[in-house]
């Protein structure tokens, strides 16, 4: 499989400003050296809790915000481009290759536009000016995501959350993008509707060979869609592996804790739960050494001083933990 997207050493620091003159007094290291690749046709899930920087990574890739450092290379029609450093003017024609599905199905659709206009807007912007042609393409897209054709003349307010998310997916697919970034696409939906959207994403990927970066906070949702999973904690990736391997034998203590904290609909499954102490570290003031050490039950003195780098401990298994190879952590099989 060929590589579609390669992220190297991505950093995004937000300045903390104070006072009347808005002087910079510090920095929030929202993303602090993130590297990964996505192969064509696969789904990589970026998982982590609030403030871990997963959303910032996705916005940097789409250049909704400008990264502070690092490169984001994407392979487009035979040549590669570094999106991180490209001037905005040159970026605009390339935007069509990367589209986004948003978390909030309410704020992501312009309430003043008809469904047909919303799905057709990317087409119009990128040169499909013929009205009839656009309409035909919009109708085809609506069918693809399971929306009735009559919806084309309605406004988003007439639709439920699940249907709105379908509209958002149709809009993202309109330009046949090389990469789809899905930012928590089901976390705002009701359980009974979540499954519909997850299945739709799987179907679309099979039919269209989509490459997806799936951002989520929920390991159970991720299990159903991802080929590979990258777990983030306070601005860095702590572990990255094939889905099955990561769930069965996590190598990072944080992954282990996340897995055990995921609620499972089986009564009595909770007896093996690992309860982490304290709160997630503050990215404006991360602890020295391994950022996870204050909460880690396996921490040693060196974890407080030495920052673990990401290492490929086995083929396809990356982990940033000083004790990764010696711990023997529990996976999902041992938890129930």
């Amino acid at each position, binding site marked *: 499989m060929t590589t579609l997207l390669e992220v190297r050493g991505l950093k995004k620091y937000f300045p903390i400003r104070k006072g009347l003159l*808005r002087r910079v007094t510090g920095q929030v290291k929202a993303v602090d050296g993130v590297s990964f690749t996505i192969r064509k046709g696969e789904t990589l899930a970026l998982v982590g809790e609030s403030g871990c920087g997963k959303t910032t990574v996705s916005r940097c890739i*789409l250049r*909704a915000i400008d990264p502070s450092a690092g490169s984001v290379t994407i392979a487009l029609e035979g040549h590669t481009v570094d999106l991180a450093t490209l001037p905005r003017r040159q970026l*605009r*024609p390339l*935007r*069509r290759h*990367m*589209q*986004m599905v*948003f*978390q*909030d199905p*309410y*704020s*992501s*659709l*312009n*309430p*003043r536009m008809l469904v047909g206009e919303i799905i057709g*807007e*990317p087409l119009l*912007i*990128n040169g499909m000016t013929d009205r009839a042609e656009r309409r035909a393409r919009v109708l085809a897209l609506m069918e693809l995501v399971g929306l009735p054709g009559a919806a084309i*003349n*309605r*406004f988003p*307010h*007439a639709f439920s959350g699940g249907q709105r998310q379908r509209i*958002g997916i149709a*809009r993202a697919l309109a*330009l046949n993008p090389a990469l789809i970034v899905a930012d928590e696409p089901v976390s705002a939906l009701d359980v009974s509707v979540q499954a519909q959207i997850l299945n739709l994403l799987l179907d679309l990927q099979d039919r269209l060979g989509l490459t997806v970066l799936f951002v989520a906070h929920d390991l159970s949702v991720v299990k159903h869609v991802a080929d590979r999973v990258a777990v983030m904690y306070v601005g860095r990736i702590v572990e990255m592996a094939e889905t099955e391997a990561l769930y069965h034998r996590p190598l990072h203590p944080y992954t282990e804790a996340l897995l055990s904290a995921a609620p499972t609909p089986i009564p009595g499954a909770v007896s093996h739960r690992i309860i982490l102490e304290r709160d997630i570290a503050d990215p404006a003031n991360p602890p020295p050494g391994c950022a996870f050490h204050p909460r880690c039950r396996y921490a040693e003195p060196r974890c407080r001083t030495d920052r673990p780098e990401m290492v490929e401990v086995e083929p396809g298994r990356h982990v940033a933990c000083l004790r990764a190879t010696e711990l023997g952590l529990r996976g999902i099989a041992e938890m129930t």
Partner: protein
Amino acid sequence: MFSFFRRQPKLSQAERYAQATQFQLTWWRFRRHRVAMVSGVIVALFYLVAVGADFLATTDPHATDARTSYIAPQPIRLFEDDGSFQPYVSGLKGVRDPKTFKLIYTVDPSRHVPIQFFGHGYSYSFLGLDTDVHLFSLKTPERGDGIFILGTDQLGRDVWSRLIVATRVSLTIGLVGVTISLFLGVLLGGVSAFYGGMVDTVIQRVIEVIRSMPTIPLWLGLAAALPNDWSVTQVYFSITVIISLLAWTDLARVVRGKFLALREEEFVMAAELAGASSGRIIFRHMLPSFLSHIIAAVSLALPAMIISETSLSFLGLGLRPPAISWGILLQDAQSIQSLALAPWLLAAAVPVILVILAFNFLGDGLRDAADPYG
């Protein structure tokens, strides 16, 4: 068959809702806001009066006659003594004051002066047409006669006619003023939000400085700086400019806040990621979203403008006679003496209160209705 007929309109109603535009949704919501609806009608009526001021006035608002000073309000009677329908007012008769031997007019209930509709009176120009038709006027007026619904002032001018004409001045000064401050507010607020950084900081600090100025002394100074020999129009225009130069800051803040909030909206980001130009993002996505907020902000800024003009003129710093505005009319009612003698001079306070309240309720209603999604 029966159920078919019953269900049909229900379905189409859902569809009607589904296809309702932002404007329709706002209107549906606004319509349910009863106080705001009534206020809207009142405001509309006031502006109708402003447009047709001369048509509704009965006597030349500038015409003075010292002998008819302080005539009390005269009721219009609808039926003649014989019971036939013929609106009339009582005529005036001249009597010598027993002490000063001055000729003054008093009401003579025995003489009936009939009123006609669409008759002729003083001439004026309406939308460029010169005419002298008025809604109602006296059929056979003798010297001193007039329809003094709200009485007359010290100089014998008809308060009703002056009030009607003042409505035009006071309401349009609000409109002109709001237009200027809207322009400034949207421009500077938009620039502030769009460019951010240094530009934003400078504009925001300027707004803070302007807002921290005590307004009355500032007006005093500015008004004093206006040359005395300026015409009524020039003064009128300068006053509106002065008021709006101070009033734009509120609108600028509304625009900037809304602009910044909208820039974070996901649908704006979606358009940007689809490759939309800044122009398209601003005009297709952002502007329609805060247009309704601007309309609401304007309807709340208008009464502030009107109050400003009224207070300025009342204090003698704004418009000056012979211009007529609510403030100037109220100026006549400044002294206790004239109030005791002619309490009807306070009539100008009624439309001020009414229109300010109506505008505020209207603005509230619009603001609530403007965001059918919020």
